């Protein structure tokens, strides 16, 4: 289990995973996200009816995927979400939920990495899709 931060290049209010539960470089990672009622995005999405925005689910997948393509050296390099090939949000995600986010590297060409991502809550798939990340050359 990796604590988080400092393993992630993101900071408040944009840290969308709380820790990395498993990570094999260039294979896969599993990120964990606990949603509290205090998440900044719940204030406006929506007042009195909090639901995690779909784009934040995508970002949580991308942040998890980012750990897979690091070379293990510090500091952690920022990578960029550069493609959403497909993404489905199947269930609403609300305060109190714990999400397990799995990002599996499917292939890469040059600096582009294609991931199959699955977000589950108590074994139920709440979202899944295929994302592409770019790791800019040093």
């Amino acid at each position, binding site marked *: 289990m990796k604590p988080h931060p400092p393993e992630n290049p993101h900071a408040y209010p944009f840290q969308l995973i709380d820790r990395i539960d498993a990570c094999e470089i260039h294979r896969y990672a599993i990120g964990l996200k606990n949603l509290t009622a205090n998440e900044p995005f719940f204030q406006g999405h929506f007042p009195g009816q909090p639901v995690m925005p779909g784009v934040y689910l995508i970002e949580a997948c991308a942040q998890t995927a980012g750990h897979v393509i690091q070379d293990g050296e510090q500091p952690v390099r920022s990578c960029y979400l550069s*493609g959403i090939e497909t993404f489905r949000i199947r269930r609403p995600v609300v305060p109190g939920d714990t999400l397990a986010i799995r990002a599996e590297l499917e292939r890469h*060409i040059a600096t582009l990495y294609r991931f199959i991502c699955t977000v589950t809550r108590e074994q139920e798939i709440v979202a899944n899709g295929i994302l*592409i990340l770019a790791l800019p050359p040093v």
Partner: protein
Amino acid sequence: MDELKQQIKDLLIKRLRLKTTPDAIADDAPLFGDGLGLDSIDALELSIAVEKTFGVEIRDAEQGLVAFQSINALAAYIQEKRGETPPA
């Protein structure tokens, strides 16, 4: 070989949503940069499309550099990997 090249052009246009016709793509024109103007994210998408359509893997940058030079190069690469006619 000509049929394969035609199939590749059709695939390129369809998968990458190019606003051109198969006849307008020269067999020896570069696919990237000054040629068709594709970029690296197109290369990734194309590698998936080639794998699904022709059953041939393009899994790394070195293979991609060879295969994605032109329509001619891609056709030769596919034939070679399928164990058909070796490239000229």
